[in-house]
C-alpha cells in the first residue's frame, strides 16, 4: 500500500524540480497555470464542497492582481510587498464576503441566481477596468509593474508560486476538515435539514465564498509580478468561465483537480493552438463529456484508479471522543401557543383559525384525517410556510418570519416526514453535525476539537439503533428505515426542548416501528423535552401519547387523553364518516 503522504511529497518534489529538469520558460509557463489552479481551488471550496457555483471568480483574481500591480509599480521594499500581498487577499476576500452575506442572506438559495450575480459582477468589473484608465491603465493594461524585489520573474518567482500553491492547498485542506468544512458539505447535501438543525447556512456559504475570493486574490497578487502587466481580461467573463471549465475538467471535488485541469489544458492549448486552431473544440468536447459522465473530472478518475491499485488517498484519522458535553438544561416549562392561525394558499384554506396551547411536557400526538392541516401546522410553526394571520408563540417569543435556523436557538427541533439526512456524508459526520448544533462558535469552528465531543445520549441512541455504531458507512447507503432512525437521532441529539416529529414511523417495517417507538418512549422518559408527533397510525398514538390533539379541516377539533378523544362523539363522527 502506497502512502498518500508519500505521493504528495513526491508531487511537490516534482514541482520544485521542474525548472531544473526542464527549461526555465517551461517553469514560467507552469507558474501561470498553477496560479489559475489556485483560483480553481477556491471554486472547489464553493462548488465541489458547498454546492454553489461562482461564475465570476476572475473578478477577485483580477482585483488582487491590480492591487499588487499598483504597489509593485513603485518598486517597493519587501515590507510593502508583503503588505500588498496581504491586501490582495483581504480586499477581494472582503468584497466576496459582503456579496455573499447580501446574496445568501436573502433566502434565495445557492441556485442559479447566485451564479448569475457573480457572472454579472464579473462583466461589470471588466467594463470598469476598461474605462477607469486612471486606475487600471484601461484596455492597454497596467504596465511597468516590477517583479518582487530581487526576484527574477522568469526564474525564482516560480518557487514563490509553488509556495502559494502549497499554502492554499494546506489551508483549504485543513479548512475542509474542520467542522466548518463538514458543515459546508452538509449545505451541499441538504441545506434545509441543516437549517432545521439550527445552522445559519447562509453565513457558512458567505464565509466559503469570502475565502474563495481571498484565495483568488492571492493568486492575483503573484500574477502581477509574473506578467509585469495586468489587463482587464483578468477580471473578465471569459477567464471566469475558463476557470470553471478547468476546475470541472480537472475535478471539482478535490484540491488537486483544478490545478491538474488548469495545467493540463494550459499546456495542451499552448502546444496545440499554433498548429491546430480548433483546439478549443477538443477542450469543449472533453468538457461536455465530463459534465455528462464524469462529475469527478480527471482527478476523480485518478482517485478511482488509485483506489483500485490499493492506495488510500483519504488519510482520515478518527479522533477519540473524550470530551463530554452536556445537554443544555431545560429550564422552563414548555408553552407553545397557536392563536387564530390561518393559512390560505390560492383558493384553498389550509389552516382555519387554528388555536391551541401546549403547556405540559411529554408526548403530544397530532392526529386527524388526510388534509386536516397537521403538517401545515408544523410548517407554519417552523417558518417553512408563512401564515396569513394569527400568532404563534413559543415561551412568549413570537415566531413570525423567523428563519428556520433561529428556531433551533429557541429550542425547537424538527424532523421532516421524508427521512432527511446528508447522504454523501458518513453516519459519524451526520451525527457530529447534530452534536455541534448551537455549540460551534467562532473559536472552535476552525479547530478539530468538536470532533472529540461526546454525549451520553449518543450511547443511548446507539443501543437503540445498533447500526449507528458502524460510523464510517455513508448515510446514503442506509435503508429507508435506518435513515428515519438516523434522522431521528440527529433531531434529538441537537437537544431541543420542543421536538417536532412528522410521522417518524413512515416507511418502517413492523420490527423497525417497534424499535422506533421504544426509542421515542425511552427518550421522552429520560429527557425533559416536549414532543409533538404528527401521526396516522393509531397504534403508535396508543403506545406513545400522553396527550392527543385532533385536527379537522384546518381547525382543532378536540384534545385530551386518548380515552377522552375516543369518547368524543365529534371525533368519532369525523373518523367514521371519513374526511368529510
Amino acid at each position, binding site marked *: 500500500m502506497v502512502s498518500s503522504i508519500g505521493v504528495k511529497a513526491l508531487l511537490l518534489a516534482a514541482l520544485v524540480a521542474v525548472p531544473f529538469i526542464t*527549461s*526555465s*520558460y*517551461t517553469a*514560467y*509557463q507552469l507558474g*501561470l497555470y498553477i496560479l489559475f489552479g489556485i483560483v480553481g481551488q477556491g471554486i472547489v471550496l464553493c462548488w465541489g464542497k458547498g454546492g454553489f457555483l461562482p461564475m465570476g471568480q476572475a473578478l477577485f483574481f483580477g482585483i488582487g492582481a491590480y492591487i499588487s500591480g499598483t504597489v509593485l509599480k513603485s518598486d517597493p521594499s519587501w515590507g510593502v510587498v508583503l503588505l500588498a500581498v496581504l491586501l490582495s487577499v483581504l480586499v477581494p476576500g472582503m468584497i466576496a464576503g459582503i456579496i455573499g452575506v447580501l446574496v445568501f442572506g436573502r433566502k434565495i438559495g445557492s441556485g442559479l441566481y447566485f451564479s448569475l450575480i457573480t457572472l454579472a459582477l464579473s*462583466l461589470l468589473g471588466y*467594463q470598469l477596468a*476598461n*474605462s477607469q*484608465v486612471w486606475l487600471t491603465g*484601461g*484596455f*492597454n*493594461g497596467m*504596465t511597468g509593474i516590477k517583479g518582487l524585489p530581487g526576484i527574477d520573474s*522568469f526564474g525564482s518567482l516560480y518557487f514563490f508560486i509553488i509556495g502559494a500553491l502549497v499554502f492554499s492547498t494546506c489551508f483549504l485542506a485543513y479548512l475542509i476538515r474542520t467542522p466548518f468544512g463538514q458543515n459546508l458539505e452538509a449545505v451541499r447535501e441538504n441545506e434545509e435539514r441543516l437549517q432545521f438543525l439550527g445552522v445559519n447556512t447562509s453565513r457558512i456559504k458567505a464565509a466559503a465564498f469570502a475565502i474563495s475570493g481571498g484565495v483568488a486574490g492571492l493568486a492575483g497578487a503573484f*500574477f502581477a509580478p509574473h*506578467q*509585469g*502587466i495586468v*489587463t482587464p*481580461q*483578468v477580471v473578465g467573463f*471569459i*477567464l471566469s468561465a475558463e476557470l470553471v471549465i478547468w476546475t470541472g475538467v480537472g475535478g471539482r471535488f478535490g484540491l488537486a483537480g483544478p490545478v491538474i485541469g488548469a495545467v493540463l489544458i494550459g499546456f495542451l*492549448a*499552448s502546444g496545440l*493552438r*499554433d498548429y491546430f*486552431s480548433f483546439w*478549443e473544440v477538443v477542450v469543449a468536447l472533453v468538457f461536455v463529456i465530463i459534465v455528462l459522465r464524469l462529475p469527478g473530472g480527471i482527478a476523480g478518475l485518478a482517485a478511482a484508479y488509485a483506489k483500485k491499485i490499493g492506495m488510500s488517498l483519504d488519510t482520515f484519522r478518527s479522533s477519540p471522543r473524550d470530551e463530554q458535553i452536556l445537554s443544555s438544561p431545560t429550564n422552563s416549562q414548555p408553552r407553545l401557543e397557536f392563536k387564530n392561525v390561518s393559512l390560505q394558499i390560492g383558493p384553498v384554506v389550509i389552516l382555519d383559525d387554528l388555536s391551541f396551547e401546549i403547556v405540559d411536557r411529554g408526548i403530544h400526538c397530532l392526529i386527524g384525517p388526510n388534509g386536516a392541516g397537521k403538517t401545515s401546522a408544523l410548517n407554519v410553526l417552523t417558518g417553512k410556510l408563512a401564515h396569513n394571520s394569527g400568532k404563534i408563540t413559543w415561551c412568549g417569543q413570537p415566531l413570525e418570519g423567523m428563519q428556520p435556523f433561529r428556531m433551533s436557538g429557541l429550542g425547537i427541533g424538527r424532523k421532516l416526514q421524508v427521512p432527511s439526512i446528508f447522504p454523501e456524508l458518513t453516519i459519524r459526520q451526520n451525527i457530529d453535525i447534530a452534536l455541534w448544533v448551537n455549540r460551534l462558535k467562532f473559536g472552535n469552528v476552525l479547530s478539530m476539537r468538536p470532533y472529540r465531543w461526546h454525549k451520553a445520549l449518543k450511547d443511548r441512541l446507539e443501543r437503540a439503533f445498533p447500526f449507528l455504531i458502524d460510523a464510517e458507512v455513508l448515510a446514503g447507503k442506509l435503508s429507508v428505515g435506518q435513515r428515519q432512525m438516523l434522522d431521528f437521532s440527529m433531531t434529538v441529539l441537537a437537544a431541543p426542548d420542543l421536538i417536532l416529529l412528522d410521522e417518524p414511523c413512515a416507511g418502517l417495517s413492523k420490527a423497525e416501528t417497534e424499535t422506533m417507538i421504544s426509542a421515542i418512549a425511552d427518550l421522552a422518559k429520560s429527557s425533559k423535552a416536549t414532543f409533538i408527533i404528527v401521526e396516522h397510525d393509531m397504534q403508535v398514538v396508543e403506545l406513545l401519547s400522553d396527550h392527543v390533539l385532533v385536527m379537522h379541516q384546518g381547525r382543532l377539533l378536540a384534545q385530551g387523553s386518548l380515552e377522552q378523544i375516543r369518547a368524543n362523539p365529534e371525533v368519532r363522527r369525523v373518523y367514521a364518516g371519513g374526511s368529510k
Partner: protein
Amino acid sequence: MKRRDFIKTSMAAAAFTAASQGNIFSAMAAPKLKVGVMIPLSGPAALFGPSTKNVAQMAAEKINSGGGILGRKIEILFGDAGLPPAEAAQTALRMWRGQGCEAFVGMHNSAVRGAYNNVFKGQVPYVYTPNYEGGECANGVYYVGETPAQSVVPTMKWLAGEKKLKKFYLIGNDYNWPRDTNVIAKKTISELGGKVVGEEYMPFTVDNFDSSLAKIKETGADMVLITLVGGASVTFNRAFASFGLSDKVIRLGTLIDENTLLGIGAENSKNIYSAASYFANVQTNEAKAFAKEYAKKFGSKAPVLNALSGSAYDGLIALDTIAERAGSLSTKKMDSVAEGSEWDSPRGRAKMSNRHLTLDIYLATAIGTNFKIVKTFSRQDPGNFCKA
C-alpha cells in the same frame, strides 16, 4: 595525357570540388534565422490573421531570395497573438527561449504588445506593425504602423476643406486607442475652426447604437470620426445607413479595412472614407505588383489584403533593413542605427524616424465594398515619442 598531369588535374579538380563544397557547406551551416510572427489566430481579431500570414510568407520569400538577413535564410514561425495578454506572452516566450526565434514581428493589440515588451525586455528585436495610438519608444522595438498624427490629421484637414465640414462627432470603443486618437482629432478640429458636437465611447459588448445615431442626427454633425473596432464598426455603420444618415453625413475611420467594409455591405457604405498607410487598391507600381503577386500565389479567393497585412509585410522588410544596416541582430546596435533607415514597400517609401515611420498616407472612399484611393498624403511624420 601524362600520368602526372592527370594526377595534377584531378587533384585540382578535387581541390576545387572540395573548396566549392566547403562553400556550400559553410552556407548551409549558417543556421536558419527563425523569426516569430505573432498574429491573431484566435479571438475577435483572428479575422485579420489569414491575410497577414500570407504576406509574411511573401516577405520571407522576398528576403530569402535576396540572401536572407545577415546572410542567413529566414524561417517564419507563427504564434497566436489573439489571446489574452498573459497567454499570448507565454507563446512568445516559448518561441523565443524554446524554439529559438531571434527576432519578432507582431500584429496585435496594444495590451499584447505591453505583455511582449515585458517578456522581451529589449533583448530581442521586435517590430510592431499595426497602426496604434503612438506614445511608446521601448528599447529594441520598432513601430511601423501609422499613428493618429499621420492618419487622422491630414485626412481630416483635407476632407474638411473639400466638403466644407464644420460639425464633428467622435465615436469609438471605450479604450486607449480611440481616446488617444480623439485627443489629436480634437486638436485638429479646433485648428480647423470646427466644432466637436459629440464624443462617445462604447463598451466592447455594445451592439445597439440607436442612442448615438439619434444624437448624431440631433446635433446635425456633418462628419463622424469612427474609431470603433471590428464588429462594433460593422454594426454601427449598418445602422447608420439604415437611418438614412449616409447621404448627408461623411464617415471617416482609421481602422475601416477591406474586411470591415465587406461586413458593412455595399448598400451601407456610401460616404465612408478610410485613412491608412495601405489599401489593397493602392495604385503605385510597387503596390500593384505586390497585389498581383499575392493573387497569383494565393488565388482569387484568398483573404483580402488590407492595411494590417500591408504593414505586417513592411514589418519584415523593416527587420531586414535595420538588421543589415546594423550588421547584427543585437538590439543595442539596431537601436543605434535605426534612425534614417529607408526602404520601399507596397505602402510606398518608408523612413524610420524616432523608431516610427515617416509614411505615405492614403485616403480612400468606399465604392460598394471596395476602396478607391482619392488622395495620397506623402511623407507624413509620425511624431516623436522618444524624448526622455
